[in-house]
């Protein structure tokens, strides 16, 4: 893996002195006292003092290396692991997926990386550090001082899939992340009272990292350790969390929640991101939960940069200091908490100084239920499978209006069994991007210039389907 190469590389980031990068320190957590609730597990409170004790206990277990892959499934364990890295000057690595290929590249990126895990059956091929068993409240009393962290400190790398098969690392510094999620609390209007935050998204992805984890730690709110999946689980997790309570989720989960008919407890705010939310769905959710729903727009590189209430206005409002710049038919985001000027993979139209409309994805971007990749990256992985002579992914037609859109692939690979090809791809790419359908063909429908139009691939797929049915 390499550092962000589309710009000058991250070393220039750390040298720059923006407002968040002056030599100041910020508190590890923003809770008013050690008796403040920082988390809930199964509805039971965990206090800030306990959290600080757990951080002090876990930090020495991380060993001498500088990099940690935090794979903890329990959100409280993840938070303790992250804070333990912060106080012991380690960098957290947050890849979006843990396939064997990504783990191998991670090891290449940081040879000293260890995997912090709380799961018995963790199969990540890295030296593993087991999350130490909880010691209980007895140890909490001695930990009353909140550690302070340099705002310029690089605390995490998040990764996007580059187009050449090598993931690109993006540095995140503590000051900018803090500024970003403090503004999030303002934008969500949750500054007054401590809230409980229930989330269906993992803390390892940028959206979950900010909105389910840092939003709580750095604004004095409480995170809920569970990650509910089925609608009935989400309803129970919400019912257990004291009010005011917030649900941080995605269109996929909200659609299942609304469609399931499960009785939903009153929720004070619902936050949604990862993919555009249909207006009807937003209306339905607000009605059913007697709440307001706010949608967040961002990317792995920039973090969250805008918010809107979809039932109120289609316009997004940018974070303060963040600007969008149109350049050669592309839109770049920069300023504010953004570490590096970033080309956005969506078609955005500025409507005012700090407002814009979102008109869909750029052609190369793949977004399956919030997991992002690019056709170029997926094609590279496909064509690196032994026996594949030519192959291309395409945006499959949506099965029906509200379901998740997938990618398909056409492949020229004489003598290669499709099952084996899928098994090879499974090692390289996130399961969400496994081609559906996977079509073995004699040749790809390249045009006279050798280009491969998406429409031609979709037409080929449709023809093959018709032929198979007939």
């Amino acid at each position, binding site marked *: 893996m390499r550092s962000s190469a589309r710009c000058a590389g991250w070393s220039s980031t750390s040298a720059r002195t923006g407002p968040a990068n002056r030599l100041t320190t910020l508190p590890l957590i923003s809770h008013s006292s050690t008796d403040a609730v920082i988390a809930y597990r199964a509805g039971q409170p965990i206090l800030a003092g306990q959290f600080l004790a757990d951080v002090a206990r876990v930090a020495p277990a991380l060993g001498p290396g500088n990099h940690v892959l935090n794979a903890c499934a329990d959100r409280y364990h993840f938070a303790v692991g992250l804070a333990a890295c912060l106080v012991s000057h380690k960098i957290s690595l947050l890849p979006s997926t843990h396939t064997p290929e990504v783990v191998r590249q991670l090891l290449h990126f940081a040879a000293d990386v260890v995997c912090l895990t709380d799961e018995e059956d963790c199969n990540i091929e890295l030296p593993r550090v087991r999350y130490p068993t909880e010691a209980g409240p007895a140890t909490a009393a001695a930990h009353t001082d909140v550690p302070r962290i340099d705002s310029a400190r690089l605390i995490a790398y998040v990764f996007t899939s580059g187009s050449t098969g090598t993931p690109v690392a993006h540095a995140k510094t503590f000051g900018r992340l803090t500024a970003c999620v403090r503004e999030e609390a303002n934008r969500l209007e949750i500054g007054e009272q401590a809230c409980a935050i229930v989330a269906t998204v993992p803390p390892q992805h940028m959206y979950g990292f900010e909105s389910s984890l840092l939003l709580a730690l750095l604004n004095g709110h409480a995170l809920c350790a569970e990650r*509910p*999946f*089925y*609608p*009935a*689980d989400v309803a*129970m997790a919400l019912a257990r969390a004291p009010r005011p309570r917030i649900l941080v989720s995605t269109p*996929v*989960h909200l*659609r*299942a929640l609304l*469609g*399931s*008919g*499960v009785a939903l407890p009153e929720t004070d705010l619902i936050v949604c991101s990862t993919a555009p939310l249909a207006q009807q769905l937003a209306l339905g959710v607000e009605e059913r939960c007697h709440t307001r729903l706010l949608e967040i727009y961002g990317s792995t590189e920039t973090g969250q940069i805008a918010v809107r209430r979809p039932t109120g206005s289609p316009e997004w409002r940018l974070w303060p200091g963040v600007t969008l710049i149109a350049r050669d038919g592309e839109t770049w985001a920069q300023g504010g908490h953004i570490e590096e000027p970033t080309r956005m993979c969506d078609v955005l139209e500025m409507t005012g100084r700090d407002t814009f409309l979102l008109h869909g994805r750029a052609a190369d971007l793949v977004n*399956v*239920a919030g997991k992002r990749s690019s056709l170029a990256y997926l094609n590279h992985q496909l064509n690196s499978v032994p026996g594949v002579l030519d192959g291309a992914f395409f945006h499959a037609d949506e*099965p*029906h209006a509200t*379901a*998740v859109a997938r990618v398909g692939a056409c492949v020229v690979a004489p003598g290669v069994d499709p099952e084996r090809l*899928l*098994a090879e791809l*499974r090692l390289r790419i996130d*399961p*969400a991007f*496994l081609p*559906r*359908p996977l079509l073995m063909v004699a040749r790809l429908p390249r045009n006279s210039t050798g280009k491969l139009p998406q429409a031609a691939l979709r037409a080929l797929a449709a023809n093959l*389907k018709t032929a198979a049915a007939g």
Partner: protein
Amino acid sequence: MSDKVSPLKQAAPASPEADLTGEVATLIVEALNLDVAPAAIDPDKPLYGEGLGLDSIDILEIALVVSKRYGVQLRADAEENGEIFGSLRRLVQYIGAHRTR
């Protein structure tokens, strides 16, 4: 539950379970737009990961159509949950035992 299918009935030829298996397989193929005939799904192979190759987004979609059709709300903390998507057969048995419509 009153309409719980007894093991004896399940074992009988042309059992309600066999009917339900075909019905659930069709439901899955239609909901996910899969490139496979419902009858071609091996009832004993895993639905998740290897096997039919479904992922968590699919599982949520199946949970949704199952709740709509049979009134069964799946839960991650149910003891048997890890097993439910172990195969089509197990999913069908779970639905058979918990359906309310």
